[in-house]
């Protein structure tokens, strides 16, 4: 098998008010099912290495993590190369339950927006209250970045991880760079 190539091959932009970088291939599994069911929770926790997140929450630990996507959907994150094994394991554990688990690692692009002005860059593109008191590390939003669907969370203060569809990776990178252009500090957060 060839080397996995992410949409933008780790493109970076460092000339602006926040650093933008594409994270390369990240393992992601969409899991749909009854989030209150114990077997599903156990299987998800085993795959993600973190607890089941609450509504609009994202928990991460190393390369592992899990985000709340909807009342019946979780996004499990892992190292890209582990995704298929984890998926097989999930399907094993969930055999007999009504659930859907699929590998979506290649369907996505992941960006990092980093720096003291990262909140402002995000607030130019997403209709989300990004004030420090309103959006804190660990929170998760499914929203849009300019004209395309996206989701993001803050693993720590000053750092955003943005997930979008692979086909629009270039667009998302472009709008993030425009939003981070030099001299565009807003000065509100």
């Amino acid at each position, binding site marked *: 098998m060839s080397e996995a190539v992410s*949409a933008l091959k780790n493109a970076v932009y460092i000339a602006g008010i926040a650093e933008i970088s594409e994270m390369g291939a990240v393992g992601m599994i969409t899991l749909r099912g009854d989030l209150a069911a114990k077997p599903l929770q156990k299987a998800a926790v085993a795959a993600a290495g973190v607890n089941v997140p609450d509504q609009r929450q994202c928990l991460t630990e190393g390369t592992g993590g899990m985000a709340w996507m909807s009342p019946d959907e979780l996004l499990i994150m892992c190292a890209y190369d582990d995704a298929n094994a984890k998926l097989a394991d999930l399907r094993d554990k969930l055999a007999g339950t*009504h659930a859907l688990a699929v*590998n979506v*690692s290649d369907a996505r692009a992941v960006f990092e927006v980093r720096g003291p002005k990262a909140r402002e860059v995000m*607030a130019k*593109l997403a209709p989300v209250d990004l004030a420090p008191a309103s959006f804190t590390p660990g929170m998760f939003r499914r929203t849009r970045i300019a004209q395309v669907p996206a989701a993001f969370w803050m693993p720590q203060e000053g750092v955003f991880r943005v997930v979008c569809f*692979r086909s629009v990776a270039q667009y998302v990178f472009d709008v993030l760079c425009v939003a981070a*252009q030099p001299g*565009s500090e807003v000065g509100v957060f």
Partner: protein
Amino acid sequence: MSTRLATGGRLVNKSRAVKFRFNGKHMDGFEGDTLASALLANDQMLVGRSFKYHRPRGIVAAGPEEPNGLVNLGEDGTFEPNARVTTTELFDGLTAQSQNHWPSLEFDVGAINKYLSRFLPAGFYYKMFIHPRPLWKHVYEPIIRHSAGLGRAPKSRDVDTYEHFYSFCDVLVVGGGVAGLEAARTAALSGARVMLMEQTAHWGGRTPVDGGDIDGKPAQDWIDATVAELSVMENVTLRTRTMAAGVYDHGYVLGYEQLTDHAPEMAGPRHRLWRVRAGHIITATGAIERPLSFAGNDIPGVMLAAAVRDYAVNFGVSVGDRTVVVTNNDDAYLTAFALKHAGLDVPAILDARVLPQDSAVMTQAKALGIRVLMGHAVSSVQGVKRVTGVSVCSQAGEGAVLEEINCDAVAMSGGWSPVVHLWSHCGGKLKWDTANACFSPDPDRGPLGADGAQFVTTAGAATGMFQLDDALNDAFAAADGTLRCLGLKLPKGAKASKAEHRDEAPMAPVWLMPQGAAVKLREKAWLDYQNDVKVSDVRLAAQEGFVSVEHAKRYTTLGMATDQGKLSNINGLATLAGALGEEIPAVGTTTFRPPYHPISMASIGGEARDAAFQPIRRTPMYDWHNANGAEWEPVGQWRRPYAYKRGDENTHDAVMREVTNTREKLGLLDASTLGKLIVKGPDAGAFLDLMYTNMMSTLKPGKCRYGLMCNDNGFLIDDGVVARIDEDTWLCHTTTGGAERIHAHMEEWLQTEWWDMKVYVANVTEQYAQIAVVGPNARKALEKLGGMDVSKETLGFMDWADGVIGGFNVRVYRISFSGELSYEIAVDASHGQAFWDALMAVGADLGVMPYGTECLHILRAEKGFIMIGDESDGTVIPQDLNLHWALSKKKEDYLGKRAHLRSHMADPNRWKLVGLETTDGSTLPDGAYAVAEGKNENGQRNMIGRVTSTYHSPTLGKGIAMGLVHNGPDRMGEVLEFPGTDGKTYSARIVDPVFYDKEGEKQNV
């Protein structure tokens, strides 16, 4: 003449000179000037020509209400038309050109219109140009377009960038005057998130000009202290140069921030559009002074009284050496005092009121040696391009001249109107305030939010509180009330800031000066400066039966210019009310719509320009296609290669080559864009049986089946191959444009109607790069790469299997949209390019060539396969396309089944799909109609069919097409006529739509 004074000018930095050009002339100003103040400092009174009569126009106001001072600003990539001189901050190197004149501002040919003004009354255009009808389009309009119009349209690309910013707050205060500051200060005490927007670069509004003490200190000190207090509060956001342009439902407000207009050398975006969600909005938007309607009130040098003192106090600019003040209220006296204090002459104050005794300001004026003429008015203003004097008359009379006064400026004040725009945008109602002769917000009928509660409150002059102490109390109360609405509380002991009440005599409404002005004077008394609407025009409109204010507005064009009638509306409707013999409140106002003041189109676009204009969806092989001659075709937001051009070959030749090569050797198609939906669950089979017209539950794992989808009205909405993955999992392919739409369609039925079904759907379209390997050499290529068995025996037509090819983990579908031996192979997207490269390499000696969407279309058309969007258009049902075989008779129900029973759907007269073959081998024009003899009831040629797809087939060496034809399948062999738009008529024979390999042997090898 207007000039710079030696003293005064609190907003300008006289130690920093700024150079600019107006109509090519070099001029000097200071840092802190507006373009208006700088022009006046350079004695540039004349700044433009009016729209209709091309009358000379000078600056009237000092803020966004300015109707006359509009210029073409900048050049090339920074060019902007209709820039308002009063809101344009001066910067070094600014260039501006006046508008609406020809050949020059000083000498304008169009000014002859003023001599024709008797023949250009209200509604002139409607009356004059309506007959004969064709002349409007071909004669009148082109001429009028040439002579009318304000700024020029920009011709160069805008060099600047723009952005949006999403912001949230509990309380948004609009307006940074003392009322806005007081409201923001009060609201912030509660800990609420407060945002304060001010449209100018300065805090405090006009109080520093008008004077007064707050909390025992000069207003400016209080303003500075309050701004300092607010700026250190964590919960407060302050923005100057940010105008709230509109209030929308759910507390949504657009703020327009001008970041670099005052300093174009700064890096960063030019404008930022704030998209604010506010819990509650306080509008402290102040008030706008009204002009007075007297003859010659449009001559340059006639200005609003407050503007005259703004220029003196704020910018150290005098509009004239001798200024006559004409007023109906006490406020205008402040102008006389300001001018006197600046050492200028005020020969007289003409006060239209007759008071029983002198008011306090009258006494003060007289003490300063100013003549105060009570009960007097302007009969007419003398001058052409600037004021040379006024003729004085009695307000009560008809204009008989009592006296001539030489002067070079007139400062007029007809009273003040609250800026109610933002209050009104979401439905806030107004009430008539008799004391101030203005409309003010009716607090009992405010704009209501989704919860039925009022979400906008006014404060200060915007409420109609014109006195400093009233304004501050009102602002405090507005904030207090707002906090209660939000469930918040002021801390104990919070108090309003205090000011002294000024002793004021009541104003008197004056809608025409003198009140009995004869028609000769009325014809020169302007209401709307920009659109040239006079008192006489509005009266004529009333006389002609335009009793509704909205109709009169459109008939006369009053208030329809770029200033949206900020100065003219109230005077205009008072004039209309007078002409109709109605009370002003009975006539009412026109509608206030966003934006309050024009905002740049580019700010609305934000980041959406150039590369970021629209998302373009790219497949994993996009860059390869781009580097290999792809001519792109947009398919939804995707870009797909239409054809790959080689050398200097043209597009048509490339397509022909690709078709022949795929039929004879080996073609590769990037099919990644096709939608892929995973449908899983114990009820997935039953669900898909409802979604598709044919049976999907009986499909065996490892097999594929072509399916059709209809909506509940029976119309065909999508098609594609469905593969059954395992006992309770299916993979549904959709069209390229259909993935998101069909995903949403499935979710909608699952969530709203069949919520009890145990089914989950996931869209995995982008997880895979999918490559169609097509042609007689397809199997050889895959066998050369090695891995899984792809023989006919193991992987038959309409089978699928997982395996490894060339070291890649793949899922292979034996499906064909071309009629050739074909494998559609899915690999994880991150390996898509590598797999494509491997196929190109292994195919090198098998004649491999990539092919694009046009080749795909021809291949499928030769086989008679339909294409969603060509053969279907939202009005076509499967029966029209002879797809009865895909409509299950066994199923009790599926989406569209019941609709197909409707009489129109079951009508045998529906046009049906046939093949079309031109009699001379040419290619039918796309979309051409087949015609029959005679005409229909609309006089149009009778039509019996239309072309849905048409191509030149290199395989068959002739034009082939598909079309929908009345009774088509029953008319095989018949020749139809298709008139083209090129003047030719094409003849085509009705044939079977399958042109190539009818038995399907080639795909089944």
